[in-house]
């Protein structure tokens, strides 16, 4: 064990993405063995304690903790290393807090309402994008709604009663609330949040599932169909509490626009009554609506994509796969462990593997994008370090036969997710199956990512359902059920 350095800065807030880059800057320094730069939320304090960093008591979510461990080094070099390390942190943190160059500049606005007031009178179509910590998202979103501006609330951890109030107020003012917990949207080819820029197709999507929508759009784009609009409505919109408030508005808008030949409504497991209400709401209106709830007993998204393609008389392509040249020679265990960044992908993988005959006691799926894992942290699609740490442990477990993970490309996601995964795949004792969500044109490169992971030894699929079936098959081939 080397020397531990811990520094606390009270009241120094930085967003979770900046902190991830600061952690990264530290961790890549040659002298530093392990590092964490984080706000002192309960989750982060727990993680710091697990890593053996002894943080003082009495810290709260607005306090910054810089913690790192130096490798074995002569005393004389350590002081210099700490100084260099702290300097690199300051560079990263300072990069985003520069004030205007001259005092005569108009001061920056600290609220959504302030910026909207300053840009009022502009002709351009407005949308606000809110991704602040969930407990504070309501005020920002309400600013937009009160100003008559549509808002996408990327933040999760927003209390449901705030969501309902926000959506009622928005309906009164004729604007749409996309979210909360809305991971993706595509509006006139502009991708918001975790997003892609597909070709403009004949089909629009209303999605109460971020990664589900990304997956469906990726599949539709492969043969070149793309998508027209993808309006997110938030993961709880079809719940008994929220009752499809935004879904109704989104459907009305797409129907009024009259440019879509088909609308697909994609949702996490919905409340059955709400689904019936929505079906009745659009009954007899054009264009037709295809309902695609996710979960056990439902169609998987690959099936949905194929039906959409066929309905528009497109042929269904062979969904791409990337496989290792050398099959795994070790003899791993018989359990499948799913470690996902996307909740819908996790739900679907579990349903497909179960349908393929994998017994429940050999299947365990974790969604690292769940609210419990994202309090005070960036979403795992941006910062997959928690998921990847778990992968390292799971893949070394002799009981595990397959580790099934997802890699989501696109704007907003990690700039090079393969780079972190390749060494983990190479070191894995178990098979690694990857669902790769993305399309040509994503900044990370679809084929490059698929090939890099396959070269390392992973089985990579564009279709999550195919990946899940492959995972089940890998453990069945060797004396499975």
């Amino acid at each position, binding site marked *: 064990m080397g020397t531990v350095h811990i520094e606390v800065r009270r009241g120094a807030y930085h967003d979770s993405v900046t902190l991830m880059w600061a952690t990264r800057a530290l961790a890549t320094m040659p002298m530093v063995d392990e590092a964490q730069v984080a706000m002192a939320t309960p989750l982060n304090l727990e993680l710091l304690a697990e890593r053996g960093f002894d943080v003082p008591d009495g810290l709260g979510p607005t306090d910054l903790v810089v913690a790192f461990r130096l490798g074995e080094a002569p005393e004389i070099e350590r002081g210099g290393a700490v100084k260099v390390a702290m300097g690199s942190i300051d560079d990263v943190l300072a990069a985003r807090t520069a004030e205007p160059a001259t005092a005569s500049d108009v001061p920056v606005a600290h609220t959504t*309402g302030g910026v909207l007031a300053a840009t009022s009178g502009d002709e351009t179509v407005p949308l606000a994008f809110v991704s602040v910590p969930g407990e504070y998202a309501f005020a920002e979103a309400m600013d937009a709604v009160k100003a008559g501006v549509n808002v996408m609330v*990327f933040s999760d951890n927003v209390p449901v*009663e705030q969501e309902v109030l926000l959506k009622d107020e928005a309906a009164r003012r004729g604007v749409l609330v996309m979210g909360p917990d809305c991971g993706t949207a595509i509006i006139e080819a502009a991708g918001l949040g975790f997003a892609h820029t597909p070709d403009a197709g004949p089909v629009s999507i209303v999605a109460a599932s971020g990664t589900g929508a990304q997956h469906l759009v990726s599949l539709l784009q492969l043969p070149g169909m793309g998508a027209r609009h993808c309006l997110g409505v938030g993961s709880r919109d079809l719940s008994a509490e929220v009752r499809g408030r935004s879904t109704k508005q989104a459907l009305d808008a797409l129907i009024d626009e009259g440019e879509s030949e088909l609308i697909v409504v994609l949702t996490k497991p919905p409340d059955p009554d709400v689904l019936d209400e929505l079906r009745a709401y659009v009954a007899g209106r054009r264009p037709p609506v295809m309902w695609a709830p996710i979960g056990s007993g439902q169609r998987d998204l690959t099936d949905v994509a194929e039906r959409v393609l066929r309905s528009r008389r497109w042929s269904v392509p062979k969904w791409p796969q990337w496989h290792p040249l050398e099959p795994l020679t070790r003899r791993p265990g018989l359990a499948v462990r799913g470690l996902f960044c996307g909740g819908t992908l996790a739900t679907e993988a579990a349903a497909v593997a179960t349908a393929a005959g994998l017994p429940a006691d050999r299947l365990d799926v974790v969604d690292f994008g769940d609210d419990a894992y994202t309090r005070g942290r960036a979403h795992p699609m941006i910062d997959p370090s928690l998921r990847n740490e778990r992968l390292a442990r799971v893949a070394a477990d002799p009981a595990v036969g397959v580790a099934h993970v997802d890699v989501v490309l696109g704007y907003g996601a990690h700039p090079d997710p393969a780079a972190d995964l390749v060494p983990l795949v190479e070191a894995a004792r178990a098979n690694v199956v990857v669902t790769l969500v993305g399309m040509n044109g994503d900044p990370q490169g679809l084929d490059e990512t698929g090939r890099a992971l396959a070269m390392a030894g992973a089985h990579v699929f564009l279709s999550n359902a195919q990946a899940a079936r492959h995972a089940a098959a890998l453990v069945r081939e060797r004396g499975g059920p």
Partner: protein
Amino acid sequence: MSHGPPYADEDDDRPPRPLHGLIDAAPRVVTAGPEMFAAALEQQGVQVDRVRWRPPLTGTDPAALARVVADARGDDANAAAVARALAAGAELVDVLPAREALGLTGGEFCHAGPPIGWERASGPMRGALIGAVLFEGLAGDAETAERMLAGGSGYDLRPCHSLGAVGPMAGVVTASMWGFVLRDPVHGGTAYCTLNEGLGKVLRYGAYGPEVIERLRWMSRVLGPLLQLAVRRRRDRVGPVDIRAIVAQMLHMGDEGHNRNRAGTMMLVRELVPELLDAAGAGELPAGLGLGDVADVVRFANGNDHFFLNLVMPAAKLALDAGRDVPGSSLVVAMARNGTDFGIQVSGTGDAWFTGPARVPDGLYLGGYGPDDANPDIGDSAITETAGLGGFAMAAAPAIVRFVGGSADDALRATRSMYEITLAEHPTYRVPVLGFRGTPTGIDVVAVVRTGVLPSIDTGIAGRDAGTGQVGAGLVHPPEQCFTAALSALAEAAPPFP
């Protein structure tokens, strides 16, 4: 923050576009949150306007913030409260002893800031109270006075604000002190403030030596009665002096109405001197007073650049009192300090004070004094900032910023940054260098909590030890917990989520 519907469809001839045209064209996006999402949009060629978001003030209860933001009464209540404050007038109608104006008796004293007792009172507050006891003849010497005050009986203490009054620094008011009576002709309110003693060893900074008591006696015997005569003559002949009009003009002459009142003082003297001369010529001076006393009064007022502060303060008080007690409003209606605590009152929460420890101002010190000699922030004079003057009008007073250790750019920045936490721009108080923009007026608790921008107060610094007097001047901010506590109280008064 202004809350118009900036993007509402205004052209009624066109059919309404679904979702205000959201899906008609690639959007322009306002982003609040991590930079990467804004950058990703720009990569795609989307125009992005960034919110410089940061978490609310430390100590903010997120659920309370949401509940206050959700309160459907909020916007209308704030609009109504601030409209009343902006509409309020301020006429100088009389000069009276506090015994008559406030109904104080010999043992009743008012003080600045939120309620406080002897035990927790700071040096200058204690000194001023000792002086008050001596001035009212309740004790023959300082030791006896101090024993009486420490004993806790034989006198009564209450905040000036609770009686519709305001007092600079210690703000101690006794029955025999004289003061200005201002009236708001629009809403009918009345406000009171004592006469300014000048600089140096004075009661409001906690001095209580013989010369201090002697000056107070002269103010009661000569200054008060002569000002009363002038003010009443002016009122009865041509109408009362319009203090609001003088404040508007002083902002055009380099004053900000808190730390610099030079032009305001000259304009007031200009109004009152002819009345005094007329009265003397007509033989109407009070018995025992002559032309020499008139000259002393004019010299005293002219020689004290802060003479007019004691008129700006009650004018501000009138405006904010008009904005009080609007249910659901988060308008700050008072900011005041007693030398130990900083307190605020809010329109939607009645007379409750939300307090935190007063801070030591950051500024420049006179002579050999330094920060160790400074008392924490004291006085009701922050009522000027509450009304859009003082630190909020700093851009109008570039000459003052060197006195408090800043540059002319700092003055512009100070005023500009206050627009983000205020509900309105003052229609009468305007700043020439900002293109005659109205001063930022009407502090919104919710905006302070959300932006983390604290009101900027331009203030004098009192010496820590009783009787030292002024040791400097500088800038100070209220403690954060005043605003987070007020927010929680507003949340409790707000309707629950359905």
